[in-house]
């Protein structure tokens, strides 16, 4: 078990290094941090002093190591746009994004999995066809348009729910949460649906196709031939076997929810990391972009690890060795 986790962590290191290299490349070669930090007028001495202070006169690999060292300590320098430490900005914005992503994931899973199971089992019923049509529309509707439509209907026309912001938040230490106030919950509804809908349709289609695949398998046929009850075959034998591939994809999808929140946060002016990122892209604020990239990569690596551990729990072929 321990060896398994360790090997997975070791496998993740090259990925993180590759992403770090890209982030470092952005940081070092794109744009001119000196010019950005010193403004228009500066003396040669000032410039040299800053170059030395930032270590820009040292070999590239030293700079890269220093960059990694800093990144590990959470130091990504100053934002060009806001002139504040990037780490502070991210810590400030992270709770908003994480709470939104959590709610969106719950929506996507709690609705998507049952819909997928249903459409897999009763593929010819009219409700399945309706679900499938709905999922196709879900895949073809861009996230921002879903957000706009929801705002139009529920905020502008009906006036039921807020169209922007997080509502009232409560500060728990450094974490600001919207879960403790009614307005916080209300503010979460539309963004969560917007963000979760795409993943919901993906999860539904995935679960459905896996169900269809497994229902065709020999062991399900054999379970039928043994006269087991439909409920046991569908949920015990079939659904459980679909879990392995479903966990992988769903895991990755949940990771991309955090990345996709860029769009949703823009539509709903949600004060999270995505909004921070998009503002950095449009103002070419490289330190924030580099830090965000590394953060997302770390999230993906972490999710991959959790996915592998879940595999371990679900599939006995990984747990127990071969033996005769």
């Amino acid at each position, binding site marked *: 078990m321990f060896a398994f986790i360790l090997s997975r962590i070791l496998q993740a290191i090259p990925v993180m290094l590759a992403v770090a290299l890209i982030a470092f490349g952005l940081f070092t070669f794109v744009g001119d941090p000196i010019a950005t930090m010193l403004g228009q007028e500066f003396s040669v001495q000032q410039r040299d002093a800053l170059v030395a202070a930032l270590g820009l006169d040292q070999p590239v690999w030293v700079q890269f190591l220093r960059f990694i060292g800093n990144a590990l300590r959470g130091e990504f320098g100053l934002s060009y746009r806001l002139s504040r430490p990037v780490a502070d900005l991210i810590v400030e914005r992270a709770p908003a994004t994480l709470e939104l992503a959590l709610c969106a994931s719950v929506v996507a899973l709690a609705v998507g999995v049952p819909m997928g199971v249903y459409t897999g089992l009763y593929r010819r019923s009219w409700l399945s066809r309706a679900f499938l049509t709905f999922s196709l529309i879900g895949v073809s509707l861009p996230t921002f348009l879903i957000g706009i439509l929801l705002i139009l209907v529920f905020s502008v026309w009906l006036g039921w729910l807020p169209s922007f912001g997080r509502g009232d938040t409560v500060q728990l230490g450094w974490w600001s949460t919207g879960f403790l106030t009614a307005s916080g919950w209300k503010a979460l509804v539309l963004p969560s649906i917007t963000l979760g809908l795409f993943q919901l349709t993906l999860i539904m289609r995935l679960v459905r196709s896996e169900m269809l695949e497994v229902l065709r*398998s*020999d*062991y399900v*046929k*054999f*379970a*039928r*031939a*043994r*006269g*087991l*009850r*439909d409920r*046991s075959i569908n949920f*015990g*034998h079939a659904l*459980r*076997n679909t879990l392995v591939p479903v966990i992988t994809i769903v895991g990755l999808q949940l990771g991309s929810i955090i990345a996709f929140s860029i769009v949703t946060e823009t539509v709903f002016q949600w004060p999270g990391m995505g909004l921070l990122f998009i503002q950095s892209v449009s103002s070419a604020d490289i330190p924030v972009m580099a830090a965000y990239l590394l953060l997302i990569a770390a999230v993906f690596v972490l999710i991959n690890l959790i996915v592998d551990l879940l595999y371990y729990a*679900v*599939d*006995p*072929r990984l747990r*127990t060795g*071969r*033996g*005769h």
Partner: protein
Amino acid sequence: MAALLEVRDLVVEFPTRRGTLRALDEVSFDIAPGEVLGVVGESGAGKSMTGAAIIGLLEPPGRIAGGSISLRGQRIDNLSRREMRRIRGKRIGAIFQDPLTTLNPLYTVGRQLTETMQTHLDIDAAEARRRAIGWLEMVGIPAAAERIDAYPHQFSGGMRQRVVIALALCAEPEMVVADEPTTALDVSIQAQVIALLKRLTREKGTSVMLITHDMGVIAETADRVAVMYAGRVAEIGPVRSVVKAASHPYSAGLMASIPPLSHRVEHLPQIDGAMPRLTAIPTGCAYNPRCPHVFDRCKVERPELLPANETRAACWLFDSHAPRERAHV
């Protein structure tokens, strides 16, 4: 003795884009209690399809379009899903070809056994577990009491097929449909598994429909044999008669192509041509284009099963009422 299973004029059809295909065309046979009926034929002859129709698990869009299947006089081809489920496993067991894929990889073999028994028999969990261990012992799994909690991937192919046999028999069905039970196994293990199946079914008095293309297995195990060709029964009769003195030209050709064990031969006879596809079954006797004894009537009129020596064969050579134009047999 009254038949346990009666299949009468069974027709299975597949609707396709280019019209309806007849995969089984008026197939009829009986299986007596405790009897082993071997079903042989080339791939695509309809052997497995017949087995699937009996256990009510035809792959859609295939469907029974005519005829009947009765178990102890009760029709089972037109039952509801619910009623048919109660017959599968409980009264008719099934054994599939590939033991590597027929066991659910995520459940222990013990759980698969106890689930099957508890579905069909009125026993509690402890009793089910006790019996499961008993079944594993009966099918020859060493250290059954420990192995019961092992997963399928921890068994070899032969051992898995023994588990499959235990699963098929554990609710004590009256008959078992065994579809190519040894084809996927190593040759060295095939004989053991067949012997096990034969011994257990004989002890319990279970009838077996043994589908295979291995004539050796049939000769050793079956009481009677049905030879299938292009979705029809070509010949049916006691195993010795069919193997030693087949009446239908197709079964005769099939038997002649088995290498004898007693002496070496230079050339094995073979049947020229190939079985027709379902889309192009000739009129009259389906075998007529390949038959060495073909005459005009064969190309026009389809033969019924007729008494022929010690068996029954679907061949006009044995029509005692009509003059044979060419009788070579």
